[in-house]
């Protein structure tokens, strides 16, 4: 025991090897690459979705299209004002444009899957229902009747 201690005494601590540090960081990097998704559409409206408890996942993402509704984000407010707007794909639109949007989506998806097509409504919590109802009516007219209200999970209760 004493011999062992004597040997160690006076010697410097070996430097900690940092060679494995890159591996750890790359592991983190890979993790983030897997769990996250690149932003595909440039969202021009603010969409702070409501919080709810009964959650479902989107079933088939390739058959899903997005409709964003919310007040334009700050860099567009000078041009578009602050009243809530509808955004389809990458541009501001009117509810009446949904018909063309639906037709466009139908050409991209095989006919056999048309009845499974969904439209995800990502709507800001403060938007009034008038605009949402207008969009829903247009979706009914365009026969895109499966809608998905996007929301966040409410913590607690």
């Amino acid at each position, binding site marked *: 025991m004493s011999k062992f201690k004597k040997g160690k005494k006076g010697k410097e601590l070996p430097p900690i090897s*940092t*060679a494995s*540090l*890159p591996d750890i*960081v*790359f592991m*983190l*990097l890979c993790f*983030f*690459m897997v*769990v*996250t*998704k*690149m*932003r595909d559409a440039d969202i021009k409206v603010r969409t702070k*979705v*409501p919080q*709810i*408890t*009964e*959650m*479902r*996942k*989107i079933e088939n*993402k390739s058959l899903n299209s997005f409709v964003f*509704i919310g007040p334009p984000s700050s860099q567009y407010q000078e041009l578009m004002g602050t009243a809530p707007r509808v955004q389809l794909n990458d541009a501001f639109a009117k509810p009446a444009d949904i018909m063309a949007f639906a037709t466009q989506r139908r050409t991209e998806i095989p006919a056999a899957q048309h009845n499974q097509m*969904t439209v*995800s409504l990502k*709507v*800001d*919590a*403060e*938007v*009034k*229902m*008038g605009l*949402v*109802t207008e969009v*829903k*009516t247009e*979706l*009914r*007219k365009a*026969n895109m*009747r*499966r*809608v*998905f*209200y*996007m*929301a*966040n*999970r409410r913590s607690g209760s």
Partner: protein
Amino acid sequence: MADKKIPEINAGSMADIAFLLLVFFLVTTTIQTDAGLYQMLPQWVDKSDEVEPKPKNKRNVLQIKITASDQLIVESGQESAQINFEVLNLKAKAIEFLTNNDKTPALSEKMTKAVIVLQNDNGTSYDMYLRVFNELNAAYNTIWEQASRDKHGVAYDALTEEQQEEIRMAFPKVLSEADATDFDKK
């Protein structure tokens, strides 16, 4: 010169490079938030050839109105309307109404006849609407869960699709939306 050893490459900066990449991905990506609620919208019919629906017995209808100021007016069967109803109590109210099974004469006869009608105003906030919609879905989910546990002894999510379908047929979800009112125009 030739027999000199190649000096070891310093890997210390490798971590920095990897961190840089990590930060880049953190900034450009978003964690996927693809959760929410499904709804099947009713088929569009032109006003002209709309058929007047057969009037329902009032006791089989749970009517929920959301006003422009986000207040709830709930009319459960033949009970008198309750104003300023709390959203938190809505789930219990809906379950009470749906699973009445002829116990109380004012509420629904049986679940296959019971209808929930949701009506909002154009001035209702989307937040309030979705919270109400969520509570009503929660009521149906609770009923299905209970039915699944009674019949199969397992959670609803653990059933096969046919079994789920069977439960949904026995306890059908009839949640219709009336045309929105417009407070501003009145």
